């Protein structure tokens, strides 16, 4: 017998649903999901397919994807390809609360909304993503971000950075200020540098790109630096922490970045500031002193709050990076765990996969992958697995990985929003 995806969905739904229904004749258990990004939307959809009563709290009418927004910055792609609505979720019976949650009463198991109404829950899933810290780098606040864009939440900021680069004269300098770990999308600043260099090498070849970094190493570093030397010789300079790369102050009026070693004026300055879990999770008490949310690696339950789960960029996922792939994989494990727990059963230990592609140029992709399992209270790397693309590989490998990067984006956005 051969069956299509519909049957597969049905089987998964049956698995989750029968597990989760409290008892015959009772109403379905209520799960509230806060945040409609790759993690929250995936989780809401999976929970709903299991027959649960699911409300997704998300103020935006559509999600704007950070993955592939670096291609928008570099003029390789338009913003309209980054937006994904919630119509498919609504069609499957996920209730949408189009608000930003204002508070969480953990004892009453209740989420407050700005119109004064509340959502009662049996289990709560927090997927708030990141907040940019506008208190961490002197001179960098929300007003400064209108001049020195972060573009680390996709949308207007993405377009602003692109326009600044397009308006720059040939021979100008673009500076990217990169944060210390942990932060959303570890290879992201370097993919961005690569694609901006691609644009500059065609349109403004006398220009330079300087990365001022608060750390001494970065994701896929060997691969990026090899590709930079090959594709953009002399254009990109990376300055790490011990060489004086850490920004200590920015000046939006002067358009400059100050490090311990000197002041760098530049025509375009992209400041990727330090980050922490989204405010709603911190206000609820789900975050520790690090600003991120510790979780049980089997169930994604908060280690600090009962009946609350945290997934995606906001959680402390051990070896798993803060990526859309990770958030999607975590969401599916979390949904199954929530269903088990509502049935009164302890979920089995999961394994999770992450794969992150980066484009160094159109047709030139590199990747990092990992496999993770619960160990010592965190999600630890499975030793011997994972790693980055080979340093020495023929062009067809780079070109296939670029094709896979696009394929992954098509697939994951279809799974989450399509």
């Amino acid at each position, binding site marked *: 017998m051969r069956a299509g995806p519909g049957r597969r969905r*049905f089987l998964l739904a*049956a*698995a989750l649903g029968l597990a989760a229904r409290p008892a015959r004749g009772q109403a379905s258990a209520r799960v509230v999901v806060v945040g409609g990004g790759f993690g929250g939307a995936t989780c809401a959809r999976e929970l709903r397919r299991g027959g649960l009563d699911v409300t997704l709290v998300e103020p935006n009418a559509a999600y704007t994807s950070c993955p592939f927004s670096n291609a928008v910055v570099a003029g390789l792609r338009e913003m309209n390809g980054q937006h994904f609505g919630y119509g498919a979720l609504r069609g499957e019976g996920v209730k949408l609360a189009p608000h930003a949650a204002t508070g969480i009463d953990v004892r009453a198991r209740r989420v407050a909304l700005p119109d004064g109404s509340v959502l009662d829950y049996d289990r709560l899933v927090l997927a708030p993503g990141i907040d940019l810290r506008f208190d961490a780098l002197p001179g960098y606040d929300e007003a400064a971000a209108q001049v020195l864009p972060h573009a680390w939440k996709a949308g207007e900021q993405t377009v602003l950075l692109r326009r600044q680069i397009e308006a720059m004269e040939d021979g100008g300098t673009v500076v990217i200020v990169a944060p210390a770990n942990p932060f959303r999308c570890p290879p992201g600043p370097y993919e961005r540098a690569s694609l901006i260099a691609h644009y500059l090498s065609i349109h403004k070849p006398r220009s330079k790109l300087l990365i001022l970094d608060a750390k001494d190493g970065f994701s896929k570093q060997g691969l990026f630096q090899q590709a930079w030397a090959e594709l953009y010789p002399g254009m990109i300079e990376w300055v790490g922490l011990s060489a004086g790369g850490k920004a200590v102050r920015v000046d939006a009026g002067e358009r400059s970045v100050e490090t311990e070693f000197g002041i760098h004026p530049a025509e375009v300055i992209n400041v990727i500031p330090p980050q922490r879990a989204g405010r709603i999770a911190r206000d609820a008490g789900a975050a520790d002193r690090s600003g991120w949310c510790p979780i049980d690696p089997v169930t994604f339950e908060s280690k600090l709050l009962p009946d609350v789960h945290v997934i995606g960029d906001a959680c402390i996922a051990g070896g798993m990076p803060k990526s859309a792939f990770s958030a999607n994989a975590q969401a599916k494990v979390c949904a199954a765990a929530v269903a088990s727990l509502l049935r009164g059963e302890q979920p089995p230990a999961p394994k999770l*996969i992450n*794969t992150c592609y980066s484009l160094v140029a159109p047709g030139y992709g590199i990747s990092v992958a990992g*496999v993770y399992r619960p160990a010592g209270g965190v999600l630890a790397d499975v030793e011997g697995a994972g790693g980055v693309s080979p340093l020495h590989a023929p062009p067809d490998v780079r070109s296939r990985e670029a094709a896979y990067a696009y394929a992954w984006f098509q*697939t*994951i956005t279809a799974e989450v929003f399509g």
Partner: protein
Amino acid sequence: VRAFGLGAALLLGAALPGLAQPAAPPGAASCSGCHGAHVSTAIPSLEGRSPDEIADAMRAFRSGERPATVMNRVAKGFTDEETRAIAAWVGLGR
């Protein structure tokens, strides 16, 4: 337990879809992030592939016998037993 879950998945999945199904075995839920059932892309779909075919491919990726860009790195994270459970689940209902 895993062997039983695997058998139950195949039997119940084919014959009694209304009854409870086992949860995805460790790792299996991650696959659909790249291998979509509803879109045609450069990444091969797993749709219509038998559990044996998937398990054999994973074994060959793990040993290096079959060249790959990323699946060699992913396959090394799973034992043969885990791989067979994933293959059976991914192939469920076919």
